[in-house]
């Protein structure tokens, strides 16, 4: 785990008596892109929520840049550099695109403006619709906004929950491609995804969850989509 930006050790999360994660251990290195696969109910969303602090953990450790964060409030984790975009986007619908980005930025005004300009360069559609209310955007644009908002809130590790869910194929490909651009700028990315072949093209590492346990972890280039699917659904 030495040198890992994020390391998760023996993580256990349960909803009442129902275990959602059973001793999950893995890590994400600086600048790396890790894809999280698994069928519905495998625990992907729970894992991302546990890392950002939105669900309580029963046991285990979460370290970010060497610092134990499992007991920290969500806002402190974000201040350390964790950004989170949930499944379903959940943009602030009644606020404009620019306001969605501004509200997530901890920086003072000049720095905030610079970072928003960076987001607009990454996702030009957001800049073109800066004054539109978020509810007026297409699904793809809303997803870009959710990713941009997460990036502006915490720029060291992005946690993205099924970013391509419900998007048209081209939009989905573009969005997954943007993950590589984000990583190239120095931000690590951990994203849950169902579109295995497309996700493997942008990921450095693949982690497969099944029934709350990791059943496969390795380099993405060594993991064929077929293997991932088999491990996800058959546990083979």
């Amino acid at each position, binding site marked *: 785990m030495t040198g890992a930006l994020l390391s998760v050790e023996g993580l256990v999360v349960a909803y009442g008596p129902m275990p959602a994660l059973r001793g999950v251990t893995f890590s994400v290195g600086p600048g790396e892109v890790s894809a999280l696969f698994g069928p519905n109910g495998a625990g992907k969303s729970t894992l991302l929520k546990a890392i*950002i602090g939105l669900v309580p953990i029963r046991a285990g450790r979460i370290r970010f840049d060497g610092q134990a964060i499992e007991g920290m409030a969500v*806002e402190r984790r974000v201040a350390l550099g964790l950004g989170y975009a949930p499944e379903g986007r959940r943009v602030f619908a*009644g606020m404009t695109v620019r306001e969605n980005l501004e509200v997530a930025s901890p920086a003072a005004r000049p720095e905030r403006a610079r970072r928003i300009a960076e987001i607009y360069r990454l996702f030009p559609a957001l800049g073109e619709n800066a004054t539109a209310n978020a509810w007026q955007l297409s699904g793809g644009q809303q997803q870009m906004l959710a990713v941009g908002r997460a990036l502006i809130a915490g720029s060291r590790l992005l946690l993205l929950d099924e970013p391509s869910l419900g998007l048209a194929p081209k939009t989905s490909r573009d969005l997954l491609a943007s993950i590589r651009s984000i990583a190239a700028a120095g931000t690590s990315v951990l994203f849950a995804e169902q579109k295995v072949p497309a996700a493997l093209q942008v990921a450095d590492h693949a982690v497969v969850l099944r029934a709350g346990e990791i059943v496969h972890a390795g380099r993405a280039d060594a993991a064929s989509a077929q293997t991932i699917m088999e491990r996800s659904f058959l546990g083979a």
Partner: protein
Amino acid sequence: MSAIQLTANGLALGASYALVALGFVLIVNATGAVNFAQGDLAVAGGFLTVALAGVVNLPGVVLLPIAMVAMAGFGVAFAYLAYFPLRHQPPATVFISTIAFGIVLENGANGLFGAAPRLGPPLLPGGPVELSGLILPRQSLAIVAVTCVLIAGLQFVLMHTQFGRRLRATAQDAEMARAVGIPVGAMIAWTFALAIGLAGAAGMLLSNQFFIAPGDGTNLMLKAYIAVTIGGWGRIWGAVAGALIVAFFETILAVLLSQSAAEMFLYLAVLVVLGLRPRGLLGETIGRRA
């Protein structure tokens, strides 16, 4: 009473109701909880200025910000006593807690000041003002002007400051607000401070023009609730429009018809609005709040 005086009084009453209703909307948006003590908190603000005017010789325009700041501080205490300990309980628990808090305030005011209506300090000293040959009631104009300033200030804070954006984000999706690093608990406490500061202002404005009594809180709360229902839940301008409509019924229609007829028509209007536009005249689209 001349038509102009009547209109000015109606606007002043509507403006005061608007401040109570705005506070109501702010808290509903931020927490999802209905603060049934909002009327009693306005009454508390009124009695606070009555008490202040008795010990310091300051004009109403100076007492107003003092009362607002004091009530805002009280609002934070209210949040920590009546809301935060119960926020993870079923919604009815917070309703009951705010009702209980309101009853405590009402009886506290009754014990301290007595049940009789009391007159608060005027915002500005002096009688009616003459404008282009029209005689206008000074206090009513002052109340409307102060309310406009407060609403404009609130609108500016909400729409053009990072603090306001954070309040709105918290109101729209508290969990997501946390996930982008917003200290949601602090934002909710600030919302209570703003809302109850506005209630305090309303109490002071009402106390001079319309007197204030410990038992007025329930009526004020009901009027705020009706204003928000007519205007639209979750909408600031809806609350203002609803408050002006309620005041129209209570002043102008009451003079033209009778007090009881005006009240009957007000509630009929509520039923009509609910039937035709269940979300209110300026009701929010799901997921949009401003």
